[in-house]
């Protein structure tokens, strides 16, 4: 009862009492278990000793933590946590705000006249914004150096994730670019139809209308496919695909290493050796044929 009064209202004292009673309890168990021959090395007694030492360590830690100086240091550290979180969120919010601004500008352009047969300055800002945000905010996490025994594997996986993201953006941009002529053609056909209706010259045959449509669409594609924008996007997509494939192969090679299956890399090395060998054999065979022709023409059949 007197002890209970001592621990009342003091968390440190509670922890102290709890660890002390746990330690005593374990000592009694160990004493009961190893009482007959305490010197015998039994796996169970080893485990009990480890448990006892862990409990002692915990007791020490808690005793230290209940020290006022330690408590103050901990609280100071916790105070800085909101500041760190705020900084991180601020950066993300700034980037999001930038993206939202560009999206708003994009939305405001809807309904404006889209010039036919012109592909300069088409609405690719969303891809540019995403690429910039990705580059600034997200990509750096994949470049954090990996540590430890598995560092190379981790680096390759990070690279794969990074390249996958970049490839997806590149292919999205490429596909978007391919959809632009449809948009422009629809606009042109709308204007043409309005003109024809005003003149009372509406084609009665759907085929005529289709022929007009396909001709305009073809024209738009011909202009697009020769434009610097398309060349750039095509080149970027191809480069992104190559990097993605390379990164994927590296990770697959790592995984396949655990299986009794040869990888592309291993087979390519074999193919290369095989190719070089074949070339050497052919050269030698040709030389031999030439010598045979030269020195024994009857046998060679020449």
């Amino acid at each position, binding site marked *: 009862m007197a002890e209970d009064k001592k621990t009342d209202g003091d968390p440190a004292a509670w922890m102290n009492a709890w660890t002390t009673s746990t330690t005593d309890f374990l000592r009694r168990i160990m004493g009961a278990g190893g009482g007959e021959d305490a010197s015998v090395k039994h796996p169970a007694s080893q485990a009990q000793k480890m448990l006892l030492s862990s409990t002692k360590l915990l007791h020490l830690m808690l005793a230290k933590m209940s020290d006022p100086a330690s408590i103050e240091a901990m609280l100071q550290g916790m105070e800085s946590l909101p500041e760190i979180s705020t900084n991180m969120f601020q950066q993300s919010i700034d980037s999001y705000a930038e993206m939202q601004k560009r999206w708003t500008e994009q939305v405001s352009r809807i309904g404006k006249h889209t010039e036919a047969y012109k592909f300069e300055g088409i609405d690719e800002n969303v891809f540019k914004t995403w690429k910039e945000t990705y580059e600034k905010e997200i990509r750096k996490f994949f470049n954090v150096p990996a540590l430890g025994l598995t560092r190379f594997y981790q680096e390759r996986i990070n690279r794969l994730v990074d390249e996958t993201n970049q490839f997806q953006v590149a292919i999205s941009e490429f596909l978007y670019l*391919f959809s632009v*002529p449809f948009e422009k053609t629809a606009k042109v056909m709308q204007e043409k139809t309005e003109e024809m*209706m*005003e*003149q*009372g010259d*509406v084609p*009665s*045959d*759907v085929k005529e209308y*289709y022929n007009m449509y*396909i001709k305009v*669409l*073809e024209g738009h*594609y*011909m202009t697009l*496919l*020769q434009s610097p924008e398309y*060349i*750039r996007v*095509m*080149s970027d997509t*191809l*480069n992104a695909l*190559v*990097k993605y*494939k*390379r990164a994927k*192969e590296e990770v697959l090679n790592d995984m396949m290493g655990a299986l009794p299956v040869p990888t*592309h890399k291993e*087979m*390519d090395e074999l*193919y*290369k050796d*095989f*190719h070089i060998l074949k*070339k050497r054999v*052919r050269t030698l065979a040709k030389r031999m044929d030439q010598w045979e022709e030269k020195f024994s023409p009857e046998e060679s059949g*020449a």
Partner: protein
Amino acid sequence: MSQPIAVDLILKNLAKGTEKAEKRARKASEVLLGPLETDIATTPYEVVFQEDRVKLKHYVPEKITHKVPLLIVYALINRETMLDLQPGRSTVQGFLDHGVEVYMVDWGYPTRKDRYVSIDDHVNYYMDTVVDVIRKRHGLPKINLMGICMGGAFSVMYSALHPEKIKNLVTTVTPTNFDTDKGLLHIWMKGVDMDGVADTFGNVAGDVMNLGFLLLNPARLMIDKYVGFLENVDDRSFVENFVRMEKWIFDSPDVPGETFRQFISDCYHKNLLIQSKMELEGKRVDLKKITMPLLNMYGKYDHLVPPEAAEVLPSKVGSKDVEDICLPTGHIGIYVSSKIQQQFVPKISAWLKEREAFEKSPKSPKKARTPKKQDTASAA
């Protein structure tokens, strides 16, 4: 003031159209579900030689009127079956009808194992081997060589490196000058880094090639073509020809990575071939060494090998006997258009016949007649 829209006329036309469509659909199902003759490459041949994936096909005419056989070398892209697409429009059959004995290289289907096969392997090994096989079979020191598209570029390289084995050279829709911005391929290839593609993928996949060619004109090749098919789907003959063409156009083998890498780099990027600066394993391809007669044919509306890419060759070779013909057709129209075939095959056949001089064996050669100098001409 806008005119009123004749709604009743539109509805009437719609009703008529629906009736027509219904009849067409019924006929179409009979055609599509019935027997269709869509085999390609039906002209009989014999495979007389094979090494690795490369085969040499031999076609024999009923009556041989040309003493020197013709070796046709197709491109690595798509298949040589285009020259024998359908009865009545077969370039191979056309040559046979003119008494020309034809050999044709079948490049086969490269696998990953072939990724290191280079242009030098194709030209100085495979082509040289088949040329030697033909020479030996016929006891001839020289044979006639005809190249198509990239196969034509290979034929040019071969003729420059082995002029002693080639009697006459015919190049058709052959790109030799790549310093032009006409033609989408010439524009696109300048932006492509082939090193990355070849190192990473090994071979350039046939499906990628197919997609690339479709993207040259997506409106016509991915939409309008099939609209045209649907409009004629009740016509058995049309459907058969269409399916044959589809079979050929999507039958794209992979292209060995090393070959494609060098072709893009040395030709599309650096334009070395026409400058006689291209090298195959250290051996320079000097166009001045092409001293045999040259017939150069190409299409005026060819979007893959525009005239600017093909017409420069005759002025760069060492031969004095050159003829340049521009036909009013596209890249494959030159082989599959029945109208053009009436000019194309007879012209080549006659040109070869004119320059024929029989030489039995390398040991006892007859002196060849020197042919008359031909002016280059563009025929309409």
